[in-house]
Structures are given as structure tokens and as C-alpha cells.
């Protein structure tokens, strides 16, 4: 059941696979609530189920058990088409591997979600974002012509162009050197504030976790701990 203040609520989420006769649990009975504007970190060792949790919360995958609400809407059983408006308008995604469309240039990649919703100002918005993240002059470069840091900036702009309510970021600095990681993280956090978005991020990095409002620690598919970095948010 979603509470009024929560932008995202998850109850008893489980994800398992059947291999031969064995049921292998990736996630087991995860419940959490995320408030609007919150910066939540999902931390944990490799294989603890962080990315799986992010995919269930964002509707990219379906849980074996449990439910997910976005504000007051249960998205658990929505079809791909019914999820489309959420992904387009309410969610923004930033991935470790960037996942830019290789056949589109930087501007086209950024514009794409806005064009999908029929925004006539898509191009202007994209150009503003490009300037904001310091990619001026790279508008027409294709992904293979960009560096890792530049690709992630494009991905960041793409995630923000429709002013999403929630940004899901899966180890956004995982493929970057330390200098680019710092730049991307600063941009991400600044832009989140500018756009007033909730940020749910999967990361290993304790430095990043320190800048979050709250961190939940996953271990073997279960929540092993929760740290609130600011006083505003209780576990």
C-alpha cells in the first residue's frame, strides 16, 4: 500500500529463478519506501541483487512476488505499453554502460524521449542541456565518436529532458575514471536538485553514498542494513 508522501513504495519484493528443481532467490522480501526528492543509494557487494532491485523498482523487470507503487499506482502488473508513459515522463535512466542508441547522434539521443511525447521544444531543450553539461560542439557526434565521460553526459541529459520524477542510476560512474566520475556525479546531483527529481542510485562507492540522503545495504538478496545520512529521513 503506498503512503501519501512516498513517490515509490515496494512491498515484499522477491525475484527468483528456477534452475532444474531448485528455486534460486536473487531478491527476497524487500520492502522500502522512497520519498519525493530523496537521494537513495542501493549498496552491496557484487551479486547482492542491487541491479535486480533497481530493475524491479523501475518496472524494467517483473518481481516473482511483491508489488511496486509509483505514487498511488501499482505498476507491478502493468503491460509494457502501460509502463511506457511512466518510463517516458516519470522516469529517467542512467546506466553504467550508457546504452545510447548508436545510430543517433548526441542531440538526437537526448531529444528522443521528448520527441516520443511530441514535445515541440525537444530540440531547444536538448541544446540547453548539452550546453549545461559542457558538450557544446558535440551535438552531431555519434556515440562511437564520444569518450566515456561524454557518453554519460549525453545519457544524463537524455534522462532529464522530460523532467522525470525519479532518476534510476545503475552505477553511473562505474565505467569512468575518477576525474570523469567526479564530474558526472556533481552534474547528476546538481541537475537532480535543479529538476527536483528523486534519485535512486546503485553504487559501490562509499564516497557517493556519503552524499546521499539514505543508503540501504543489500546482502544475499536481503536488506542487511540502512543508513540515514540526513536527519530528515527515517528508515
Amino acid at each position: 500500500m503506498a503512503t501519501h508522501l512516498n513517490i515509490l513504495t515496494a512491498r515484499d519484493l522477491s525475484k527468483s529463478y528456477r534452475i532444474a528443481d531448485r528455486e534460486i532467490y536473487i531478491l527476497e522480501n524487500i520492502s522500502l519506501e522512497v520519498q519525493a526528492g530523496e537521494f537513495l543509494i542501493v549498496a552491496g557487494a557484487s551479486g547482492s541483487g542491487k541491479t535486480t532491485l533497481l530493475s524491479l523498482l523501475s518496472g524494467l523487470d517483473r518481481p516473482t512476488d511483491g508489488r511496486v507503487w509509483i505514487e498511488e499506482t501499482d505498476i507491478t502488473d502493468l503491460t509494457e505499453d502501460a509502463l511506457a508513459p511512466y518510463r517516458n515522463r516519470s522516469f529517467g535512466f542512467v546506466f553504467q554502460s550508457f546504452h545510447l542508441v548508436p545510430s543517433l547522434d548526441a542531440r538526437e539521443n537526448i531529444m528522443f524521449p521528448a520527441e516520443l511525447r511530441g514535445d515541440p521544444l525537444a530540440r531547444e531543450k536538448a541544446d540547453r542541456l548539452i550546453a549545461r553539461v559542457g558538450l557544446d560542439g558535440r551535438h552531431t557526434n555519434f556515440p562511437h565518436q564520444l569518450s566515456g565521460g561524454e557518453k554519460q553526459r549525453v545519457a544524463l541529459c537524455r534522462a532529464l529532458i522530460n523532467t522525470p520524477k525519479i532518476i534510476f542510476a545503475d552505477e553511473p560512474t562505474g565505467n569512468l575514471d575518477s576525474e570523469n566520475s567526479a564530474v558526472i556525479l556533481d552534474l547528476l546531483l546538481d541537475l537532480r536538485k535543479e529538476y527536483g527529481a528523486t534519485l535512486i542510485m546503485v553504487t559501490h562507492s562509499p564516497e557517493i553514498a556519503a552524499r546521499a540522503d539514505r543508503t540501504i545495504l543489500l546482502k544475499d538478496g536481503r536488506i542487511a542494513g540502512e543508513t540515514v545520512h540526513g536527519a530528515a529521513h527515517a528508515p
Partner: protein
Amino acid sequence: MGRPMLHRRFIFRQITRSGKQALVLVLCVMLSIVSLVSISGLGDSIRQNLLKDARALHGGDIILHSRSPFSAPLEAAVSKLTARGEAKSLRVLEFNSVVLNEKKDASLLSNLKLVESGYPLYGKVTLASGRSFPAVLAPGGAIVGQVLLDRLHLSVGDRICVGKATLVIRDVVVNEPDRPVSFFSFGPRVFIHMDDANRLGLISRGSRIEYSLLLKTAQGANIEKIAETLRASAEKGERVETYRSARSRIKRFFDNFLFFLSLIAIFTLILSGIGIQSSLTALIREKRRSIAVMRAVGATGGFISGHFVAVVALLGLFGTILGTLFGYWLQYLMPALFGGLLPGTLRPGLSWLSATQGIVLGVLVVSLFAFVPLYRLREVKPVAVFRKETAASRKGVVAYISMAALTLLFAGMILWQLEDKRIGAWLLLGLAGLIVLSGLASQAVLSLLGKISFKSLALRQALRGLHRPGNATRAILITLSASFSVLFCIYLVEKNLNATFVRSYPANAPNLFFIDIQPDQIQQFSDTLGFAPRYYPVVRARLTAINDEKIDPEAQRTRRGDNLGRTFNLTYRDDLLDDEALLAGTALFGKNIQGLQVSVLDTVTEMHPLSIGDRLQFNIQGVPVEATVSSIRTRTRESIEPFFYFVFPGDSLLKDAPQTIFTAIRLPRADIGKMQSRIAAKFPNVTPIDVTQIIADFATILEKLTLVIRFFTALGIAAGLLIIISSILATRLARAAETVYYKILGARGRFVSAVFTLENLLIGLLSGLLGLLFSQVGAMIISVRIFKIDYRFYPAQSLLMVAATMLMVVIVGMSASVSILRQRPMAVLREQTEE
């Protein structure tokens, strides 16, 4: 060491886990072998069943032909041979004449063959009753083709009237050795005993009769030497051939037709080869990571290459076996496919040699096309475990060498299959031109499309998809547009021929021709018709020299198309016909030219350059005549009006030469039969030709031939579609990623489907339009230059063909993409991340 060179389990795993790519590869190999084997098999069947016995096909060891009774010296030479027991001779006369029922109220133009007792010298004439031909054919009787019985509603035992004679139908001919198929002659066969020749009253000087003398030489005789002796005695117009040197019309037809089908098979082979390369590239791309891992843990390049060669060899072998079996099975469909062009008794006759040749060729092509993707296995380094493949690797020297080897192989194959190397070279050039043109046009269109900014997001994405790395867009466009251009071209030529000769038969054009009217029959003939048509005198003659340069009939006969060595029909008149115009000269005959003049049709100048003042020497039934070219005429429209190559002045010596009269009239369709019968009853020597019937027969043959061509061209299209599938499989990962990116960014399934549908639609549209463009140009050239008919574009049908192409490409493309479209986002994202 005892370590096995090849790991069977590894090979088996690679095959079973490659699923669709392996299936496409097998299908491509199968398709290439099917077309080769089925056409080889068809050739074998024809050679074994129809052409196997050259002696039977030509009627004897030595064959003498003439359009007039044989000359005394040749007759004497033959008599000498037979008297010495060196050969046995048999006479045959062939000509067309009308056969009537006994009541004379129904008639049919038939192909009469008068033979002496002892016919045939070789082979066997099969009769419906099963009786022996020599026992049945006796004076007073006739053996006829079933068509005659059907059209005149007669049965065995009924009587027919041929010329002045009445004959009893004794039996029905099913098959004759020197006429294994019947579509080369219009009209059914009627066998009559030579002893009835005079009773018919149809044989007179100037009649269109083919005289043959068939010789069966004694055992061990030197056929070439005897033929040489006979040639020494032969006069002009008499041909002496041996069964080895003679080229029958039927053999020529099948040689040409099989060559044309072979070209289509080679074309299919090229397309299948591209499919093989594309599917193998897809297969190896899917295994790239596994290969990198194997290299990282110590597998040598040789180990990997060896195993993948084994994988390809096994899949190739499987495809080859399937292709051979399917190709062989297709042989059983051939008689039905040819729908009467071949006798129903044709048995599948794939020889081991042809099968082996087909398979070896198939394996060679598979190996050459598979070489580049297999060679590129070397490029997969262990470091690929860490790195994701970003851009397609560039073609290296090896790829270009392999392409050159393939080009040489195909060029060699085409030239090898054709006896006439000049035509082979032209065809090769045409095929290469078609492929190069398709390539250039595809590139131009793709570049142009890349520059246009469309408003629709889905359309823009679809266009971008065409440039997806690894997408075989250009290869698909080239192969599909080239195949469609062949298919469309055949369709358009058929439609144009049909429209010109069959459907839109000109309303005022004559539809009934009468030939061999005697000059003294003209008045009575007009009375019988009820009106006086225009009569054209016809004098048969040969052209012997041009400006004293002798015409060699033998050399002329080897030319394709019309030649100057044949017998011509001359006429005389003083005026131009309505459909004639002068190309050279101010009048048909000039005032300033001395001696006999002749006006020449421009068709003759295509066989030999001629201009006003040139001297032509003719042999008019034994009389040498020289005439000066006074004008050159052309025909202003292609019609079924009578026309003559050589026209002499009305008061010239031709007036007194032995001649027949020819006329052409138009009658309502329903009256043709009655008029034919009336004329045939009154004028047995006159041959009526019902043009509408001939055209209907021609249309049927045309339809059957195009069906066969379409069938084999369809194999080329199938190969093109396999390339689409293999291209989709080769870019599966990229397409799946795109699908998921679209979905993650909020696109609905409808949008994703629209992007892929539009991409396929664009491929279908472009290849259809390019194919249509090439086919329109090709069909126009064939129609105007070869058939000399006006060309129609058929815009509605053309658009339908393009629409059908688009639909087919979309159906195939979307069917191959269904599993990609259904991918769950997370599965693909993980796969992408892991790469």
C-alpha cells in the same frame, strides 16, 4: 599425445546453439544446390529422354534437305550408294495443309508428313493403339495427332479429306522420334503414306514443301566420307548433314532455354552465397565472446578456425544433401511445370555426373563465400573478453582476393555454359552491369535518404536503422533489386507481347491469310470470298551475291536471327503500301537507274549494309537475275500486314516467273472456320492460316515458358529473402538493444513495431522501385529492339508489383524480428553490459 584433433562435442554444441543462423546457412546452401541440381537434372532429362539418340532425332545417319525436289546429280549420287548397298534411303515430305472432315464443314491447318514404307529408319513412332507404325501406315490411310481428332470431332476409322484425296484415320500418333515435343509446329501431325502423294494433288512447283532424304548407312561405313561425296553432288539449296553435324531446332531451343535457366541458377547461387556469408558472419558474431574466452584460456587460432571450418562443413554438407534431394524431387514436378512443353513421359534423369558437378560447384561456392568470415576468426583476440565490438572491421586484402576469385568463378561458369562466347560475354557484362547499377543506385538512394529530415520520428529511426553497423542493407538492396528486375522484366515483356499480339489484336488487321493461290484461281477465289482482296504475287528466290560478293548459305545459317542464306519471297508492284515509307530514294523505283531495279526493306540492311546502286544477284528458280537497289523502305508500324523484303517493278520479268499468290483478309472470328472449310474444299492447294489461332497457341506457349522462368527466378527471390533474415540475425544484438532503448525511454510497442516495419517497408520499397526501374528499361529494350513492338509501361501492374514486394519484405522481415521485439528490457541490458 592422443588428444583428438577435433572435439565432436564442441562442434555439435556450436551447431545446436546457433539455431536460426545455422538454419539460414543450411537453407542458403540448400537453395544454391537446388537450383543447380534441378536445372542440371532438367538438362539431363531432356538429353536422355528427348535428345538421347541423335540418329532418331534427325531421322538417319545422313540427312538431305531441300525446299524443292532434289537435283538429278544428287539423286544419282544417292542411287549409286543404295545400289552398292552402302546405304538405305527413305523419302519424307513435310508441309502444312488444311485437313477437312468428310462433310467438309470443319477444317484444321495440319502438319502433313508423307513417308515411305520403312519409316522411321531410327527410333520408334508410338501409336495410341500400341501397334507398330509400319504395319498401320498404308496407302489410303492416315495416322493423326489427337488434337486433330479433338478439333474436328473425329475418331479412328473416320475419314478426312486432304487435298483431293480422302483418307481413313487408322491410328493416333503419341510420339515420334524426330519430333519429341509438338510446340514447334502449329497444327497437329498427319502421317500419310508416300504412295498417296500424287493423289493429294498438293505437290506442285513452288509449293512450300520440305523435301528430305534420310540415309541409313551400312555398318562400319564412313559417314563423313559419304556425306562429303553427296555434298559434292548437291546443288544450291540442297543441304547434306550427318546426325552429328545437324542441329535440330528442338536441340537449339533447349540449349538456349537451359542456358537461360542456368544463368538464373548462377544468379541464385550468387545470392545464396551472399546469404551464406551473411548468416555465417551472424553466427560468428554471436560466438565472438565465446571465441575470445577460448583464446584467453589458451585455444590456438588453428583450433578455433579448424572447429568452425568443421561447423560450416557439416552445415554445408547437410544443406547440400537436402538441396540435392529437393532438387531431385523437383524433377518430378518438371513435366507439370512445363505444362505440355515437355512430354508427360519425361522421367527424372539426374545423372551422377550432373549431380556431382552441381554439388562440387555448390561446395566450391560455399567455401569461397564462407572463407572471409572464417578468415576473420583470426581477428578475434583474447582482449575481446574485455572490450565490446564497436565498429565493423574493414575489408582486408583477403576479402578482395576472395571477391576476385568469386567473380572469376562465376564469369568462368557463365562462359563455360554457353557455346557462343560473344553472347556469353555480353550476358556476363549485362549481369555485372545489373549488379553494379543496383549497387550504385542503392548507394545513391541511401545517401539521399540520409540527407532528408522526415517529420515522423518512427520514419527517421527506421532510416537510421538502415545504416546500422553490420546491417547488410546495401547487399539486400542489390540482391533484391537485381532479382526483382529479372522477374519484373519477364513479366513486363510477357505482358507486352501478349498485348501486342494476343489481346489487342488490331481491329482492322487481317486475321486470315491464304497462301499458294495459283494465278489462274484469282477470279474464282474472289468469287468464293465474296469480295476482291488485295493479292500479292510471291516468287520464291535466293539471293546469291551482293555486288558480286557471293553469299555463303552455310555461313549465313550459323547467324542468329534472320539470314541472307534462306529462300526469300519476292514480289512486284509499283506502289508503296500504307504502312511503308522510304528511308533512301525518292520513289520506289528510280528513273535514272539502268536495268532491273529492286526496292529493299530496311530489315535486309541489318543483315548486310546496302545502299542505292548496290547490285543484288538472285537465283529465281534456276534463272540468275541481277537487280540494282533503287530504294530502301521501312515499315511505319509493326502490324500483321503482309510485307516483302524485295519488291520489283510491276512490269518486270518477275511477272512471268513461276509464282503463287498470297492474300490476307479480315473476317469476323465466327466466320473464319466456315470460310477456311469453304476455301479448302474448293481450292485444296491453297493453305489458309488462321492467325488468331496461331496467336492463341503462341500465347499458351509464352505463358508456359514464362511460368518455368518465374519458378526458377523465385528461387533467386527466396535467396534474397534469406539474406534479409540473415542480415536481421547478424544485427540481432543491435536490434534488440535498440528495441530495449526505445522501450526504456518510454516508447510503446506500437512505436517499436512501426520503426522495424518502416525499415523493412523502406527496403521493400527501394528494392521494388529499383527493380522496377531496371526491369522497365530492360523490358523496353527487349520489346523495342528484339521484338520490335511498341512498349507499354503498365503503371498499375508495376505499382502492384512494388506493393507486393514491399509486403513480402515486411512479412519476412517482421517474422524474423518477432523474437527481437519481444525481448524483455532487463535481459538485453544485462547482455549488453556483460559484453
